[in-house]
């Protein structure tokens, strides 16, 4: 099979399109790159969706943890503590066991034992807890003067949060949040490695990398390829987040921008 044919056959194998059987016999470099790259679809899906949805929950958690009312503060504190304090694979284990039991209760829970939903929920909670802590730290560092200025303009409640507190909090938290995004994408490799079952040999990049490592008994080819893809992905994340960072800080004069960057670096 030529490399173009391989790409046609396996580029979307991880989501069930193309050749049904995984490559056998030769295991060319092209097959390595195509199939592991195909698996990256899952890593990007998990990371992207969890990050996007987790963002909103994280903001809610940060505000909750900062709240004076214990009815809001306590649950937020405990949620953050439990998800930040335990290894991800234990979270996967308990989530899977829990979803299996719920499945017996109602057929509504059927999709929850599949990775696309079940693992996504765990990753969502996980990233929400980590980001929530980052945002909370940033919230504490919002300059008092900003809030006082808002008060002076007669802004209160939601309006003050939306116009003043939230943007400043984002600016402060952004570099640490970038790191969290990188960690989250790395964590997606654990989904099929120790957590959720792989159906019809549809798995993520690490699943296919270990498939090749298991067939060729040579770890020095597939895992570095996997590493290569992740370095690329990390670069893209840093670029995108850097772009947002510039947008967040574009109203500040040049040297103050620098300052914010240093300051924000110490939150996480």
């Amino acid at each position: 099979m030529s490399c173009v044919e391989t790409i046609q056959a396996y580029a979307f194998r991880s989501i069930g399109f193309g050749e049904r059987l995984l490559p056998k016999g030769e295991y060319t470099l092209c097959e390595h790159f195509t199939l592991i790259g195909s698996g990256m679809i899952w890593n990007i899906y998990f990371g992207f969706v969890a990050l996007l949805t987790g963002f909103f929950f994280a903001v809610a958690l940060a505000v909750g943890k900062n709240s004076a009312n214990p009815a809001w503060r306590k649950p937020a504190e405990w949620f953050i503590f439990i998800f930040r304090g335990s290894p991800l694979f234990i979270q996967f284990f308990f989530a899977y066991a829990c979803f299996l039991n719920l499945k017996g209760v109602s057929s509504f829970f059927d999709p929850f034992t599949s990775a696309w939903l079940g693992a996504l929920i765990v990753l969502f909670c996980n990233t929400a807890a980590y980001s929530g802590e980052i945002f909370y730290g940033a919230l504490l560092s919002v300059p008092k003067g900003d809030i006082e200025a808002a008060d002076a303009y007669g802004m209160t409640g939601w309006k003050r949060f939306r116009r003043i507190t939230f943007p400043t909090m984002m600016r402060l938290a952004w570099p640490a949040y970038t790191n969290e995004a990188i960690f989250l994408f790395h964590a997606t490799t654990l989904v099929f490695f120790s957590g959720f079952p792989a159906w019809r040999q549809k798995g993520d990049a690490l699943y296919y990398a270990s498939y090749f490592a298991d067939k060729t008994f040579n770890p020095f080819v597939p895992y570095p390829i996997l590493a290569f893809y992740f370095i690329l992905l990390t670069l893209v994340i840093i670029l995108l987040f850097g772009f947002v960072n510039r947008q967040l800080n574009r109203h500040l004069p040049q040297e103050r921008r620098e300052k914010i960057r240093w300051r924000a670096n110490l939150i996480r």
Partner: protein
Amino acid sequence: MKSLILGTAALALTAGMGLADTVRMGTEGAYAPWNFVNDAGEIDGFERELGDELCKRAELTCEWVKNDWDSIIPNLVSGNYDTIIAGMSITDERDEVIDFTQAYTPPDPSAYVALSADVDLAGGVVAAQATTIQAGFIADQGWTLVEFATPEETVAAVRNGEADAVLADKSFLDSVIGDGLVMLERQEALGGGVGMGVRESDQELRGKFDAAIQSMKDDGSLNALIAKWEVSSQW
């Protein structure tokens, strides 16, 4: 000429030293009854007894080492231990990378376990441990395959209805049936017998173990050991 003789002498000397060295036996320690960790925390099982006996017959000092299954071959070829004795079936793919002694057990068929004996394999979901020969076989058949990281999870999946049946080595499944689980009539012959893996560059060691296995086959002690641990059919 003199230096040449000296060279051979040195070579003979190092070879002699090689004999006195310990042979490190790599195993997984998580695959009862073949090899597992007993209550005392030591490696136990069919292969422990077999390995100790083989070392005695080949007059080698042996030491047992545990290694994760996924990296058991890379660590052998990298020289971290000298043999693999871990219930490893002799397959063509493995044989290309490492060498095997002759098989010490006949091929162990793979069997299915399900909640009822009349399960539809082709239309249902079949579980297997990820990246095993069984997983490859189910994929080849075009059935719906679901892979779990450990054998224990595959059986649990059948119990809780995630999968309709599980395909695994018969000797392993023998220990899990009962309590609602039944073994199907149908069996598959996958892979060859089980042998000891050695590095391709280590033919001397392979020869010694080969001879020791042969002597155990000849005097019937191997069959007795197989019967004791119920790992497979006898020779």
